[in-house]
Each structure stands twice: as C-alpha cells, then as structure tokens.
C-alpha cells in the first residue's frame, strides 16, 4: 500500500492533549503526523490547561480552545463544544487522553449530529481493557497476564505478604505505576496512588524479560489495520520512553494480533508487552489511545494518525503501509519562546485563534 496522502482533504481536525515535557501527551505528535501526510486544512487544539506547551508552538494548531474536564459531565462538554462549533467547524476529533476517551465514546451520536466523526472503540471494548479487568478477561483466552492483585485497602498488601515476591509494581487505576521493593514501599505507593486516582490499586508481579510497546489501529472486527512494535532504548526516571527503535518480531506481532482479535478493538491503542525469560509473552497494559511516541509510526512508514483521520471519515482501508524496522526515535526537549499575551488569551478567553 502507498503512503497515505491527506493533501486533498479540506476538513477541520480537532486533537486533544497538547502537553509535552516530562510526561508528554500524544496530541502534538498526532498533529505532526497528520501534517506529515500533507494535510493543509485546519487543526483545532482542544486543551484543559493553559500551560499545555503545544498551544505555543507556531504552525501546530491553528486554533485552540479550552475544554471542561471530562469529570464535569456531558452537559458542560457539549455546551462548550457547541460554542466552539459556533466559531469553527470540526469534522474529525482525535481524543488522545485516557480520561476523556469514555466521554467521546458515550457521546458518539451527539458528536455525529454535530458533524464530528471519531474512530474509537465501543464502551464494551474500552471497559474490557481496563487495568482491573485484564487479569479476568484475557487468561481464559490463552493470553498471559502477570500475576495481578486488586487492592481495596492497604491491609490487603499485608494479607498477601506470603505470596508476594518483591519487587512488585503498584499501579493507579488510570495513571502512574511505581516499583516497590518491600511491603512498606508498596503501602506508601498505595496511599499516594489512592489519593490521586482512587481505588482499586493494582499490584502486579514483575516479569523479567524484554519489554515492547506496540501502537495499533484496529478495524473493530478483530483485525489490526496497522501495527508498529518498538523497544524502548531511553527510559526516564518516571518510566517514560524517550527513545526507542522499531523491531520486527513475528512472535510479538502475532501475540498483539491475538489481543486485538480478542477485543475486536476499533481505533488506536498501545499495547505494553513483555517477553519473559521463559519465552512467553505477557500483556501488561492496553492504553486506549495513541501513545506519545506515535510519531515513530509515521517515521517508519506507517502513518497511523493519518489513517485514523481517513477511517473516521468513512474511508475503507484494508491495511496500512509496511513499517521499516530499525527506525529510531529520540525525544528532544526544546524551549518555546512566545508572548505572555498568548497565555492571557487562553487563560482569560479560553481560546486562541491565530
């Protein structure tokens, strides 16, 4: 299949999650990938915070609008969207943050009525990949998961002390994960994560082996339209991959395909997989959106964000172009110089039109 070309697509695309920095969101690389496919139409950035760095990047988003947090509910989300639509059309929306995907899924009909198309999983598919469901749903299908415990209280850690082998990973329900070397550290992480993300807390055994991340666009019928696997080469102290290389591993690809088939996943996602020293693949996590390293997919020949735009527009794609193994990415941080007036516009008016 040839490289995807969006140069003749005269539409407006909205993308969320424009923060970069030490814990980057995927919006900026999604927009860059779309632009790399020749897209010359309008890009609208939807942000939650005036300090999302992508707002200040020239040539990225043509217009930026502040959105209410998803937790404020559907009414405020739609009211804000209707205001934005009074200023600009939006034909396709690509949400990129875990916490906002559910509201975009639930409001698919309302979005369609407003002329906004998405390419997302169903609510059922979304819920099955929840960290707290992985250990129940996948093992009966022959997809291995590291030994996982759901904790409702810090006491649960003590109750498990005889069967736990430290170190373990302690994870928040939505975000963040920390390695705990002993019971006390596990308890500390439990309280920190509970305060931020609520219950349950997930406690998972560590599988020694090779860790891979795979970015995928599923067709919703069990097939991967595109798949790019990478191994992280640079990992920050927060566990974020700031460098990686595309790998070609048939065993890994067929394992990832089985995961997508089990869910009939529709839309973008990222799988975190470990090939244990025992040679077995283990599914660690499924993130329901593009990862922040998705630019690597475009860079190795498989522009998944561009494909997602076309799929949302209803175009039929059987498969995406092949990727080039050995393609490398290194994340580079750079200071953006801007004017305080831009911060004023977005802070006071909640919008910025260039």
């Amino acid at each position, binding site marked *: 299949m040839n490289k995807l070309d969006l140069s003749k697509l005269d539409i407006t695309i909205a993308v969320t999650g424009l923060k970069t920095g030490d814990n980057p969101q995927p919006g900026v690389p999604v927009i860059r990938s779309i632009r790399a496919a020749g897209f010359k139409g309008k890009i609208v950035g939807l942000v939650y915070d005036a300090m999302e760095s992508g707002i200040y990047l020239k040539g990225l988003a043509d217009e930026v609008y502040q959105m209410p947090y998803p937790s404020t509910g559907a009414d405020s989300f739609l009211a804000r969207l209707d205001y934005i639509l009074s200023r600009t059309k939006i034909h396709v929306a690509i949400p990129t943050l875990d916490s906002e995907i559910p509201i975009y899924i639930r409001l698919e009909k309302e979005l369609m009525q407003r002329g906004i198309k998405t390419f997302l999983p169903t609510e059922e598919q979304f819920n099955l990949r929840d960290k707290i469901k992985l250990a129940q749903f996948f093992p009966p299908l022959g997809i291995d998961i590291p030994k996982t415990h759901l904790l409702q209280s810090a006491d649960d850690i003590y109750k498990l002390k005889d069967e736990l082998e430290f170190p373990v990973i302690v994870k928040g329900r939505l975000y963040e994960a920390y390695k705990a070397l002993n019971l006390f550290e596990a308890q500390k992480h439990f309280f920190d994560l509970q305060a931020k993300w609520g219950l349950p807390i997930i406690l998972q055994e560590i599988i020694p082996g*090779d860790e891979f991340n795979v970015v995928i666009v599923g067709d919703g019928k069990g097939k991967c339209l595109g798949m790019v696997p*990478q191994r992280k*080469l640079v990992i920050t102290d927060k566990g974020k991959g700031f460098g990686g*290389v*595309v*790998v*070609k*591993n048939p065993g890994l690809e067929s394992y990832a395909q089985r995961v997508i088939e089990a869910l009939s996943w529709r839309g973008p996602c990222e799988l975190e997989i470990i090939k244990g020293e025992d040679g077995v693949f283990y599914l660690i996590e499924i993130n329901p959106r593009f990862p922040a390293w998705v630019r690597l997919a475009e860079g190795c020949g498989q522009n998944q964000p561009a494909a997602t735009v076309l799929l949302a527009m209803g175009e039929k794609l059987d498969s995406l172009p092949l990727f080039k*193994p050995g393609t490398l990415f290194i994340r580079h941080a750079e200071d953006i110089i801007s004017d305080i007036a831009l911060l004023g516009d977005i802070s006071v008016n909640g919008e910025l039109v260039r």
Partner: protein
Amino acid sequence: MTLAVNKNGFIFDPENGISYTVNETGLFVLQKLQAGLQNGEIITSLCAEFEVEPEQARSDLEHFAAMLKALNLAED
C-alpha cells in the same frame, strides 16, 4: 540469522531491538556466517586474513560462537 550488520561493526537485532558492537575480527566472522560458510571455511579465511595459526583461529571462533549463542544471536 536475521541480524543487521553494518560495515563498522554495529549489529542490530531486529527481533528484540538490542544492538551490539563487534571488532574487526568479529565483523569478519559474522559476515562469513551470514554468507553461509561452515566453521572449517571460516577458520581457513581467518588464518588467511589475520595471519593466525588454525588452532588459535578455531579457539577464537568457538569462543565467539559461544558468546553469540549466549546472547541468542545464533542457533546451534
């Protein structure tokens, strides 16, 4: 062996994303292995190229092969 070997001795294993570097002799042996040469032929080539005795070449090749196997870069 699916390793990507460049002329400077930088080796990339596309299956797991790990990279290695080898010296001139290691690169020479890897290129011969990739060309499908058997151990005896590689030893002869090593002796011709690096002016070493066959016993030395055999010992070095066995050591290098054991290392490749330990790193899962070669099969038996």
